[in-house]
């Protein structure tokens, strides 16, 4: 009788342990799955941002090519902020240009360097304002002598 009661007690204990293990396993699986789902959503968002960053950078490159290295069309199209050696344009989260820096999510910085050989080196970088992380960089060179070629 004593043995039977001991066995019965042990069965309950083992059953409880099994239940706890099942709950633990379910919780671990849930945590992993939810993390994967949110990471995949983040990846999809990053892909969209990169696509648009590439498009904007290539647009700037085309404007510089059109003006043979000068920035008149770039200024007319993007209306960027200008400082001594660079231009900064701001974009909202839908990649439309916005003049209000506080409402912007991304910025594009164009740095130019002119050489005596007639070459204009431009560095176009697109970055996230919140984390100041560079998303995409494009380097272009325009030869500004007569019959200039775009590279």
């Amino acid at each position, binding site marked *: 009788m004593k043995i039977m009661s001991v066995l019965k007690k042990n069965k309950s204990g083992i059953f409880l342990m099994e239940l706890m293990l099942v709950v633990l396993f379910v919780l671990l699986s849930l945590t992993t799955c*939810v993390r994967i789902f949110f990471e995949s959503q983040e990846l*999809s968002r990053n892909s*969209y941002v990169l696509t648009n960053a590439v498009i904007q950078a290539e647009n700037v490159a085309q404007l510089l090519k059109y003006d043979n290295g000068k920035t008149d069309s770039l200024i007319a199209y993007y209306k960027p902020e200008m400082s001594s050696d660079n231009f900064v344009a701001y974009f909202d989260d839908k990649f439309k240009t916005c003049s209000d820096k506080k409402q912007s999510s991304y910025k594009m910085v164009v740095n130019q360097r002119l050489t005596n050989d007639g070459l204009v080196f431009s560095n176009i970088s697109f970055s996230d304002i919140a984390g100041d992380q560079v998303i995409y960089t494009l380097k272009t060179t325009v030869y500004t002598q007569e019959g200039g070629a775009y590279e």
Partner: protein
Amino acid sequence: MREIKKRHSMDVFFVLCIFLFCAISLLGMVFVGARTQQKINQSTEENFHMRTSLMYISNKAKFFHEEGKISIENFEGMATLVFEEEIDGIKYTTKVYMYDGCLMELFTEKDYKLGADSGTIITELSSFEVKEINDGLIEVTVESPQGKKGSVLISGG
């Protein structure tokens, strides 16, 4: 006897609670997963249509980077981007336009007349606008079927 019955019903209740917790958690996870998958699919499709059309036009423009090779024409009432080239002494044109909800490409000899439905489908779009901002600078704006807009600039030379 009553005590034994109470303990037994408590055990069953506890087990049922754990089962309910597992069931609700799994259902919740399936729901979150389905929503996430739906959002990702939607975003991928938007990205695909817009990116494909803009990158196609941008790469085409880079290939025809010489002056005078890119122009805007009216083709069957539609604003059309025209790329001109010469192969073995014969002039050819590549027309890019929107027809029947799709971005189309039509490659023919320059003076050969073919209808808009003869083109090759590139991707689906809901709108395609071509505008000359300055002499030789063209802005192409596309809108995906999901409503996302994007623009690409083409410098003719």
